[in-house]
């Protein structure tokens, strides 16, 4: 049996401020150039979900998810990994420019030769016994993050003839709300492989693609130790007003 919705049926609360909708920034779910999307995209049009309490809240994961050395991928084993040691750092902001503090960032990547430590990756490039390729950290009060790792290599895949993924690091971010959740990839400047990469080309706006490219950051390079790259991430910010079209849900048109 169902339970009553609320004990004394209080008046409906006022709307909460939602988050900016930025669907046009992101790749479509159906993108024939990336063959694996064919059977993995919904055919029915996505239904507009208003931003209610479940959408404007989200898990605020803290220090308990992060170990002391988790932001240094070069120190997870007895020895040092092969490859070019790099620092990857930047700030997480929302689209209003406000820093996103104390938010969990998780990364994963291939080793210097472009091989992932994963049972599904068997191309002929050696594993590195001193490199796993996973890291995590929390942003600080100003939304800043910093990883030490090695520069990942490019690797072949079977999407199209002579297909190669540009070197990249996978990033996962929570922000402060379910609506802000983002998984993406950071690329390196001037990669010659972009032109044939469907992940890159799936982003409709060429300017938006460039936002996935880190900047070589000579100023932050550590002499005789590591090169540095800076990459800022922008999550969706909050609406300044409640939009009328989200107050009333339209009937489905299917």
């Amino acid at each position, binding site marked *: *049996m*169902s339970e009553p919705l*609320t004990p004394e049926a209080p008046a*409906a609360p006022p709307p909460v401020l939602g988050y*900016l909708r*930025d*669907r046009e920034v*992101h*790749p*479509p*779910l159906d993108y024939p150039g*990336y063959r*694996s*999307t*064919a*059977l*993995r*995209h*919904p*055919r*029915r049009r*996505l239904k507009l*979900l*208003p931003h209610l*309490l*479940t959408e404007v*809240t*989200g*898990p*605020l994961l803290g220090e308990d998810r992060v170990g002391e050395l988790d932001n240094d991928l070069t120190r997870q084993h007895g020895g040092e990994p092969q490859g070019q040691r790099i620092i990857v750092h930047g700030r997480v902001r929302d*689209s*209003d420019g406000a820093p996103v503090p104390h938010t969990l960032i*998780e990364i*994963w*990547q*291939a080793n210097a030769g472009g091989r992932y*430590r*994963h049972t*599904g990756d068997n191309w002929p490039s050696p594993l590195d016994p001193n490199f*796993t*390729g*996973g890291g995590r950290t929390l942003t600080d009060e100003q939304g800043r993050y910093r990883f030490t790792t090695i520069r990942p290599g490019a690797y072949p895949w079977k999407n199209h003839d002579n297909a190669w993924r540009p070197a990249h690091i*996978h990033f996962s971010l929570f922000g*402060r*709300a*379910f*609506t802000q959740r*983002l*998984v*993406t*990839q950071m690329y390196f400047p001037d990669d010659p492989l972009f032109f044939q990469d469907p*992940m890159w080309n799936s982003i409709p706006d060429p*300017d*938006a693609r460039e*936002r996935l490219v880190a900047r070589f950051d000579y100023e932050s390079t550590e002499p005789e130790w590591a090169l540095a790259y800076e990459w800022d991430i*922008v*999550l969706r910010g909050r609406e300044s007003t409640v939009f009328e079209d989200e107050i009333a*849900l339209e*009937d*489905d048109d299917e």
Partner: protein
Amino acid sequence: MTAPTTPSQTVGPYLHIGLPWPDGRFALAEGAPGGVWIRGVLTDGAGAPIGDGLVETWQADPDGRFDHPDDPRGAVSRPGFRGFARCPTDAEGRFAVHTLKPGPVPSHLGPQAPHIDVSVFARGMLNRTVTRIYFPDEPEANAADPVLRSIASESARATLVAGPAEDGYRFDIRLQGEGETVFFSV
């Protein structure tokens, strides 16, 4: 001044290096009282299981409250309850999360039936897809829910309602085709 946002990219096939947590599936701590399992299978447009996906869930507690400062009623924490779970799918496409059944959640559109927000990630998905789990033992609340009510097709609506199971609920996610789950633009 609005800064343009960072685009999404796929998690790819090697997400297991970075995303799974040992306690990931436990939105409610293992062994805590009142827990239910929500189990399901993630399938593609050919009906084949997706063995390299990841399912995440976020929800209110049994009182319909969130441990979050942006809930205007105030943040409420509940020992052992994280409200969030993440579970990679296995070779058969299966996932499972251990949680508490949420309570109804108020909104300006009227009271929402108990529900769980779900994100689905996988190789072959350039962005996450988002859906909601509703509960089969809440027919009246579901009938009044503003989000469910906005979906005209009864068969489409039914894809968002879990089925009963011995230790909780069953919720399959079909990305495409026959019985395709309703997905939301958030």
